[in-house]
């Protein structure tokens, strides 16, 4: 379970999160929606451990791990996965090599045996197939020359292989056409299970037609201002965020 309590954070002098409270039990998928500048991306970066954000109060515990006290790689080993809004290019680094290195780093941290190249490739090919992706995805350099949709699919591929306990999807739907959106949603849905939870951060209701959340939260001006079921997303789509932030 992810338990965020009264979390406050700022960048420089700018307060972004002003006391976020959120519970995501194992097995559930929660959506966080909100207008631009509400702090959605900041929330995902603070949870994943990006430099440049100063936590000024509160905490975030995931399955007993005090996330905010851990370096990013330890959070990954504890099962936290951030699907980036803007996946980063790594020139000269093969995608298969990158994902295998990451997977083995995580497995090492969990005292699991590392996978050799052959075993990994078998696993990766199976994942590609189930996500309807091409094999060349593995041969190309990490995100270099990928279209926007390919970059997001690569995030989902990494998630499928790293098998996180908690996935944070930061506007993974932005810039995706409907086919790519379905592939991404299928990838997340395939992970569903008793030990998998996800925080789906999105601007639009559209993604939630394909990833049906157990709960929807509205983040505005750095706080959760409203929570509800999937119907809340539909209401937001119809009426907008106006009036909620007050």
């Amino acid at each position: 379970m992810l338990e965020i309590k009264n979390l406050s954070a700022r960048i420089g002098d700018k307060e972004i999160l002003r006391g976020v409270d959120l519970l995501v039990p194992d097995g559930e998928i929660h959506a966080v929606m909100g207008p631009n500048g509400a702090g959605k991306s900041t929330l995902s970066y603070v949870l994943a451990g990006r430099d440049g954000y100063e936590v000024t109060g509160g905490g975030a515990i995931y399955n007993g791990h005090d996330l905010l006290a851990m370096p990013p790689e330890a959070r990954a080993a504890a099962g936290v996965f951030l699907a980036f809004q803007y996946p980063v290019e790594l020139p000269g680094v093969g995608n298969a090599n990158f994902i295998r290195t990451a997977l083995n780093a995580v497995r090492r941290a969990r005292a699991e045996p590392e996978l050799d190249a052959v075993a990994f490739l078998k696993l990766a090919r199976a994942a590609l197939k189930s996500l309807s992706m091409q094999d060349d995805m593995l041969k190309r350099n990490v995100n270099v020359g990928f279209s926007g949709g390919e970059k997001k699919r690569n995030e989902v591929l990494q998630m499928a292989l790293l098998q996180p306990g908690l996935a944070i999807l930061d506007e993974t739907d932005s810039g995706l056409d409907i086919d790519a959106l379905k592939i991404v949603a299928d990838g997340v849905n395939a992970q569903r299970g008793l030990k998998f939870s996800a925080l789906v951060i999105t601007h639009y209701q559209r993604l939630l037609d394909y990833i049906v959340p157990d709960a929807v939260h509205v983040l505005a001006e750095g706080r959760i201002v409203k929570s509800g079921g999937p119907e809340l997303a539909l209401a937001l789509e119809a009426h907008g965020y106006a009036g909620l932030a007050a």
Partner: protein
Amino acid sequence: MSAAVETRDTMGALAAAKYKYGFTTEIAMEAFPKGLNEEIVRLISSKKDEPEWLLAWRLKAFAQWQKMAEPQWARVQHPPIDYDNLYYYAAPSGPAPKSLDEVDPSLLEMYEKLGIPLNERAALAGVESPTVAVDAVFDSVSVATTFRETLAKSGVIFCPISEAVRTHPELVREYLGSVVPAGDNFFAALNSAVFSDGSFVFIPRGVRCPMELSTYFRINARNTGQFERTLIVAEAGASVSYLEGCTAPMRDENQLHAAVVELVALDDAKIKYSTVQNWYPGDADGKGGIYNFVTKRGACRGRNSKISWTQVETGSAITWKYPSCILQGDGSVGEFYSVALTHHHQQADTGTKMIHIGKNTTSTIISKGISAGQSNNTYRGLVKIMPGASGARNFTQCDSLLIGDECGAHTVPYIESRNASAKVEHEATTSKIAEDQLFYCRARGLSEEDAVGLIVNGFCKDVLKELPMEFAVEAQKLLSVSLEGSVG
């Protein structure tokens, strides 16, 4: 966050202990008295039982050297070198071993420890097929050369140059100094006067060398300069791939390494020369380390000949080295692939010269410089197209990667074209390892150091893929190890 501070501290501790080749070997040595004078030159020559012509050649070089001054144009700084306070010859005492069985066991053990097995047992027993023959140079002498008999069956000569002077004087005399003349530059002149050992390779007409050749240079003795000389000749249609590796103990004083390498490729011959240079770089405060002042040059004398230099330079306090190609034969090809990595207070000024003389000659230069800590890394290159080099082409790409904000990267390309039909292209980039790249890797579970290693290896991929397979793997590890403690 406290976790981040802790990570940095751990990495600081790692950095201090990273140079794993820094041990010394206790062995009885003999050395000539310190200092450089005509007498020392004569002593070296007589110790090696050299013919009169070679002594005369050395003495002439010494006379030239005495009139020369150290070059000042490179972007490197060091206190003055006291050439009279160095030993110019140091070697394990006793008669030279005639075969592997006679080599001092503590030397064999040292090479095992360095990962350079000096035995042919596995191959002879048929356990695995031999792929690499090794010449092991320890301070001023070659202590062992493996697989010589196997190579001899193909007509390939691979032996210490001091031996070749006696056994193949006509070849040595024809080619020695023909690419790098004795008075070429200050350090080449010094080397010509006092060179003690190195490798000699001769691939006869039409022969493709059946295995990789390599020389492993080890400096062990204190206050001793290493002045090796390598000469590789590939006759018409011959080809060879040669690799050199270098390490030295950790010492507080600087040590001088001034080598000369000459390559000669005749018609259609191909020479691939790879270097993994990991001399002791000095400690984190810039104390100690090797001064690596090296002259390497290849002559593509024949039509359609090809010389390819690949270097991975991670060691040495100072690197001053410009492996070059003289593209004399029509249609000849020169290549220079380089990774130079500097950390802490290391200084590297390295690059190449491509001299296009023949028609339709082509050259490719790919240089990757990585600077971390307070280091300085300079690419210096010359592409020169002579009037007769119609249709010459060059492509140059120089990329620099900065880690941290206290280091420097400098690119100094010279282009001189005297033929209007020549095409010369130059591309250069400078970048920093972006914070978002590091975070992306760490969010996937990689430690900060592994992330830097991965990104740097990606940056160098175009060069690393030119290395023979087994050395490429070593080089990748070396790059990561050399960068330990560079972030945070």
